[in-house]
């Protein structure tokens, strides 16, 4: 519906604006305003002169009330566009009352959204800043935290200032303004103290050796094929190693015993590894060298003198002389040096703000359903919080992207089915339960006959690749024992309290009524089968909703709390928690949430128990010689009969007996639940698998996506999947399987992706710094209280959150604060050690100038007196 109406809306707008306005562009003052960019946008224009279009609440059309209407003025279950919140009116001619109301609803949602959002992104930014405030660039180009631990060896990997590098690669501009730039960078005194230091010479040498290594590798391969003697081959290797040694370049010998490969040490090829970029001209990033070479080769404006450019070409376009390639390169290298980030720069703060600021622009919209079957992932601030603030081990929407190998590309769909989880309920057509009272073994008993009906064998085999034998095996091994468990639990009446209290009562009733009918309908197979699906669905639907909503509203707390619970010692008493909570109120309130979390944990525990027990039930009844029926009867408390349609696999019958006084069981509901849990096949952790459409047209790879992550599980499909290109958004999983460097790359990619959806481009230097900070301790460090634990400054910790907690810890451990971190220095009223505060001045004081007062004399025992910059001025 939405997609249809949206198409209409945009077609109306595009027809009307700008060509069919009553007054076209230059004469139309409103258009004048938006086109010139003075104020307003196309949205405002279309709202005034075309129509308002579809109004959305939480990403959907206007919801219906219990009465089935969206507003009292509409008819019940009106499917029309208007009733769903489509506004055909415009501000110029006015809107109808109903439309006005819908517009107000959507408008209010927007307002609420903004209100909620600001606090969220504000807190996010605070967390980032508190962690990164101490990071600054040092004189050796490293980025270090206050305690001197190295976060990056070169800021942003090339030591360039984010602002200055913007113009650095505008080579054409620089070439055109050559004269001016030379004056600026090589003017009097500017270039003083800059050394060339033999960077170029050395790099030329290394370049030659790299080439030589390649040649020799080729030669070695050839010699191997020709079967030349080992000594001869060894000689080739030795020559190379020796020539490297002579020139002071590290050589590496790799390869196998037969075919050795020669290489020049990786660090030799990186200029900045040996030469400090701030000191030696020409020590620039490798990418810069490439780009510069590319430019001089292309020479698009014919400014640089190369063999191919003649001065007549040049004269046509420019005044003055051609620039020598060498001179231009020197200029650009000088410019590179000038564009280096300055020591003392608080790059941590810059990164934090560069993430924090754009995150305020993101709308808090997680409901991006791009149709059924496509991926549906958390976006926006919630996702950012997941990656950055909680460094979550279990993210909300984990997914994987599996690129297929060329050989397997036609098998996309089959593979999807293989990997997807298949439960018994998916291949079941229905279930009927017949109940009667019988007399057996001298007692009255209730006998229940369950008949599970499956889809046709042919279909099941084709669709899910499950044979009848597999099916029967699953029923015997998994279904019966699971059913048993469920029944026992039901009889014992161990109904989970929490669920009943919260959502149960009213809805529970409803369910029961439906079920009752299904059961009492006894002999009539039809009635049972027909009804089994409906009631429980209705029961489930609304029951789920409030929980989801609650989670969304408070999800804030859940993260922080979750991690806190981990961190606290075993004896984390309620008292302590209460204390923590009161402190936290300012940042993230709402108490229901932790109950939610606790409940979640309980639920999980119970699930775990079930699984374990079911597993036990499985084993032990697998001796041969008995029929399946006997085995089932033996292993089961209630089961007395079993039959299976072995030929067509259409049905399975189970006969259960209970004592007559057993309380009434809602059998259909139980079976339904069990069937949903009984798994025919799955890759652990993965619930769904689907073909992924390609993002761009010239991308010819074939990918499949999964909900849920299990990287190792995918390795079993290495013959079909390109395992070296698997991608996942679960950073913790990357960390576990591929290591910390991959996790770092994943963090960068994921953060960039979150902003990318909104068309925001954050500089990679900021992203890399954040990713490096999160991973430089070898793990995945979150930007929250837990991550703060490794901060060396107790003052910084305390000024973040839970002051007393950190204070107590610091006191107990006898920690001290070296007063290096910005927070600590502000606490004590000292200037922060960043920027111009990052250095101090030692000044030699002339004896004569030294004040004669005695107190100072004592300090001036040696002739050097230490003064802070502030005092020196």
């Amino acid at each position, binding site marked *: 519906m939405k997609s249809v109406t949206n198409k209409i809306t945009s077609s109306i707008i595009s027809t009307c604006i700008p060509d069919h306005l009553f007054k076209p562009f230059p004469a139309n003052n409103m258009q004048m305003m938006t086109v010139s960019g003075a104020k307003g946008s196309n949205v405002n224009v279309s709202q005034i002169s075309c129509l308002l279009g579809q109004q959305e609440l939480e990403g959907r059309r206007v919801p219906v009330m219990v009465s089935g209407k969206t507003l009292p003025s509409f008819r019940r279950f009106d499917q029309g566009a208007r009733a769903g919140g489509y506004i055909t009116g415009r501000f110029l001619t006015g809107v109808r009352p109903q439309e006005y109301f819908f517009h107000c609803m959507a408008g209010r949602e927007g307002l609420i959204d903004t209100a909620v959002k600001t606090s969220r992104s504000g807190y996010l930014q605070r967390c980032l800043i508190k962690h990164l405030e101490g990071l600054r660039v040092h004189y*050796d180009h490293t980025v270090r935290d206050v305690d001197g631990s190295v976060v990056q060896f070169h800021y942003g990997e090339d030591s360039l200032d984010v602002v200055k590098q913007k113009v650095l690669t505008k080579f054409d501009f620089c070439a055109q303004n050559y004269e001016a730039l030379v004056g600026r960078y090589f003017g009097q005194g500017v270039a003083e103290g800059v050394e060339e230091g033999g960077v170029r010479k050395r790099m030329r040498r290394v370049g030659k050796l790299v080439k030589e290594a390649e040649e020799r590798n080729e030669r070695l391969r050839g010699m191997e094929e020709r079967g030349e003697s080992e000594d001869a081959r060894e000689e080739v290797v030795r020559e190379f190693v020796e020539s490297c040694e002579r020139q002071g370049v*590290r050589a590496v*010998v*790799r390869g*196998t*015993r*037969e*075919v050795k490969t020669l290489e020049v*040490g*990786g*660090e030799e090829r990186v200029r900045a590894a040996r030469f400090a970029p701030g000191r030696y001209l020409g020590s620039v990033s490798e990418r810069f060298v490439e780009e510069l070479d590319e430019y001089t080769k292309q020479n698009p404006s014919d400014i640089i003198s190369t063999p191919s450019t003649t001065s007549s070409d040049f004269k046509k376009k420019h005044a003055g002389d051609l620039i020598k390639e060498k001179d231009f390169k020197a200029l650009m290298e000088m410019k590179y040096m000038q564009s280096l980030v300055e020591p003392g720069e608080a790059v941590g703060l810059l990164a934090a703000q560069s993430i924090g600021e754009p995150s305020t622009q993101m709308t808090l919209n997680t409901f991006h359903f791009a149709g059924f079957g496509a991926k549906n992932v958390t976006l926006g601030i919630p996702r950012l919080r997941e990656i950055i603030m909680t460094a979550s081990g279990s993210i909300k929407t984990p997914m994987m992207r599996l690129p297929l190998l060329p050989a397997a590309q036609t098998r996309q769909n089959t593979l999807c089915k293989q990997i997807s989880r298949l439960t018994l309920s998916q291949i079941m057509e229905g279930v009927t339960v017949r109940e009667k009272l019988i007399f057996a073994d001298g007692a009255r008993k209730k006998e229940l006959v369950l008949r599970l009906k499956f889809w046709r064998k042919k279909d099941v085999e084709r669709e899910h690749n499950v044979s009848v034998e597999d099916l029967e095996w699953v029923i015997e091994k998994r279904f019966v024992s699971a059913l048993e468990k469920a029944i026992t639990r039901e009889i014992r009446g161990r109904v989970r309290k929490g669920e009943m209290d919260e959502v149960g009562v009213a809805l529970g009733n409803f369910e029961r009524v439906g079920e009752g009918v299904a059961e009492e309908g006894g002999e009539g197979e039809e009635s049972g089968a027909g009804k089994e699906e409906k009631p429980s669905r209705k029961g489930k639907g609304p029951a789920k909703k409030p929980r989801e909503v609650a989670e969304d509203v408070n999800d804030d707390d859940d993260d922080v709390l979750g991690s806190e619970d981990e961190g606290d010692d075993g004896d984390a008493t309620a008292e302590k928690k209460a204390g923590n909570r009161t402190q936290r109120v300012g940042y993230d309130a709402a108490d229901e949430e932790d109950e939610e979390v606790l409940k979640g944990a309980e639920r999980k525990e119970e699930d775990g128990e079930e699984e374990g027990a079911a597993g036990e039930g499985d084993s032990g009844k697998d001796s041969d010689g008995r029929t399946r029926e006997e085995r089932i009867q033996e292993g089961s408390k209630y089961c007395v009969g079993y039959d299976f349609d072995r030929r067509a696999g259409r049905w399975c019958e189970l006969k259960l007996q209970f004592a007559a006084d057993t309380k009434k069981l809602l059998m259909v509901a139980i079976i339904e639940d069990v069937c949903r849990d009984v798994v025919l096949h799955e890759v652990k952790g993965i619930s769904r698998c689907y073909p992924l459409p390609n993002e761009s047209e010239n991308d010819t790879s074939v990918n499949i996506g999964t909900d849920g992550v299990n990287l*190792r599980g995918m*390795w*079993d499909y*290495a*013959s079909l999947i390109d*395992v*070296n*290109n*698997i*991608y996942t958004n679960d950073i913790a999983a*990357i960390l576990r*399987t*591929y*290591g910390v*460097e*991959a996790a770092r*790359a*994943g963090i960068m990619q994921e953060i960039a992706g979150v902003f990318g959806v909104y068309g925001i481009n954050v500089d990679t230097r900021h992203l890399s710094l954040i990713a490096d900070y999160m991973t430089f301790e070898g793990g995945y460090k979150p930007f929250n209280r837990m991550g703060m634990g490794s901060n060396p400054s107790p003052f910084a910790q305390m000024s973040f959150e839970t002051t007393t907690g950190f204070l107590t810890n610091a006191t107990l451990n006898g920690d001290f604060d070296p007063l290096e971190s910005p927070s600590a220095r502000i606490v004590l009223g000292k200037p922060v050690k960043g920027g111009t505060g990052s250095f101090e001045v030692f000044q030699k004081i002339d004896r004569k100038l030294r004040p004669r007062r005695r107190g100072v004399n004592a300090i001036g025992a040696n002739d050097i007196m230490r003064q802070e910059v502030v005092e020196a001025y």
Partner: protein
Amino acid sequence: MSYEENERAIARMWRVYKTCYEMVQDRGYVVSHSEVNILLDEFRQSKCPNGQVNKKEMQIMVEHRSTGQGLLVSFLVDESVGIKPIRQVIEDMMVHKVERGIVVYPKTLTPGANKGLAEVQGTLTVETFTEAELLVNITKHVLVPKHEVMSDEEKKILLDR
């Protein structure tokens, strides 16, 4: 074990075996070309004498390129490895006079085995991997940068800066 399952097991062990070779090669041990690039059929011929994987046959012994130190890679058979196979590995290492070892086990190490390993950890260096971990060479993944072991000289240069 059905034929299909057996085939799968062989292919699996073949991949583990290859990854092991790639790993020791990356660590600077000398391996031969045919060993690293072993094909599935070759593997089946040499390591699966009667159609089934013989993990004893798979044992790998390599020497380091520059230091000449030996390294022994052993594949264990038991699903849950106890102290006995570990003792055997240690003994093998003694016999071959190597100080470094890699143990590849199918599923789990018992606490006893762990203890046995911890005891010798001072004199010998033994690393453990599960087969599942070595199914795929993770260093070949796109997100993983190339790792190089630093030489002492390089360490010095870095720390001097």
